[in-house]
């Protein structure tokens, strides 16, 4: 039988608020980090597009100057070169999106972990509190004064 008089309701409230604050702060921080990551990804995607848009005419011009491309001319080298160019952009875009997605994913994973930890802590506190209430009731503490104890 637990001694109900030892339960510290003040400490319970303080610990509960501390856990909530800690989790809230980490969640806010994570949300902001995710925003920054998304913003960074978007900016990098813009840069990639811009780079490839600027590079495309020079690439065609280079093949043309070397006689590998032009009106009535279409070499395999030219085709493979342009395809590689396109694939490089696909790679770059994919890497950028994937990186951003993985960063955000990791943050969300940490968020979930933090929430899980917070829930566990909160549940523990709540369990202690409600168990204490139940044990207090079960011990019929209110009856003791009637027995002169």
């Amino acid at each position, binding site marked *: *039988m637990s001694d109900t008089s030892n339960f510290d309701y003040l400490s319970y409230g303080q610990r509960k608020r501390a856990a909530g604050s800690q989790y809230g702060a980490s969640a806010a921080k994570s949300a902001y980090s995710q925003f920054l990551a998304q913003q960074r990804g978007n900016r990098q995607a813009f840069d990639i597009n811009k780079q*490839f848009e600027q590079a*495309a005419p020079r690439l*065609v011009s280079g093949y043309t100057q070397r006689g590998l*491309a032009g009106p009535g001319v*279409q070499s395999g080298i*030219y*085709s493979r070169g*342009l*395809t590689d*160019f*396109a*694939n490089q*952009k*696909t*790679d770059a*875009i*994919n890497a950028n*999106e*994937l990186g951003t*997605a*993985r960063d*955000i*994913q990791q943050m*969300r*994973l940490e968020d*979930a*972990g933090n*929430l*899980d930890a917070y*829930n*566990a802590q909160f*549940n523990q506190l*709540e*369990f202690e509190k*409600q*168990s204490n*209430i*139940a*044990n207090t*009731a*079960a*011990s*019929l503490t*209110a*009856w003791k004064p*009637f*027995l002169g104890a």
Partner: protein
Amino acid sequence: MAEEKNKRQKAIDALKTKNSGKTTSTTRSVSDINTPTSTATNKVQSDQFYAVSASKKELDRLRREAAAAAAAAKSGSGRNPLNDYTKQLQSLLTGGSYGKSYDALQSQLEGMYGTAQTDLTNNYNTDISGANTLYSNAQTALTARNAQGLADLQTGYNTATADLGNLNTQAGKTINASMDSLQAMLQGQANPYANLQAQEVNPTAQLSSFLNAQNVGDQQAQDYAQVLNAQNAGSSGAFNNLAGVLRSIAGANQQGALADVATQRDASTRQLANSKQAYGSQLAQGLLADKLKMGQTYDANTFDLSKGLLSDTSNLNQAYGQNRQTYNQGLLSGTQNVAQDKTGQQNALITQLLAAIAKGGVPKKGKLF
């Protein structure tokens, strides 16, 4: 009662004193004798006889009267006073009139003691009856108080038991409310990993328009994008697997917590039942102990009352017996005194008669006395 007793005792003592005075006066009164003395012997006897109570003056008067009577007898003139005196003494003795006052006194004595005995018995009976009534009333009051005390005790126990039952009911509700609250909170808690899944990245083939504009097919670019998609899907799948594992763990933890709530509810409910049983038993034991104590007190008080009644009755009996004995002794003593005085008076008359005869007095013919 004591005052009456003292009054009676004083009356008896006064009677004794009066009787004693009368005895002395009767047995030694010179006026009753009035015997002439002519010889030295008679004078000595007379002196010895009168010396106790008669005064010198009275003694001298009696001697003169006796001498005058003797002189008259010697001269033979007139009536013979000695003969008259002798005959009077003889009449007193034979008629028995000398004893009437003693008989009356004895009768009065017996009447007075009889009345006193009757009063004593009446008082004794009244006292005994009073004591019985007093103790009977006390016993009745004690029994009533004991019955009331037992009833109050039972009422208090019943109230306490009802209160305990109410408190137990309330405590049961509190336990269930507490556990219901905890259970609802846990059940309403979403799995933190519930919505966690990989963000799909599905790259599309880039620059298809550019390739087409340059008369370059984009099929290879499309194929390449598909390869990347496959790679990305593999990576996402791994992450989703991880999320799934974490979700399962969190779900299991939640189920465990709910099971803990059920366990806690069961333990608290059982503890409540035990507490109620223990306190109920404590109450019952307390009631039993109080009843036992009250019974012992009642028995002790009843015993004290019985002892008191016995003691008081014994004291009354003893006092009654002693008083009766005192009264009987008083009556006996008074009777003896009266009888002695009467006999003394008779003896004195006989002595005087014989002395008168010895001096020449002539008694009546026939039986002397």
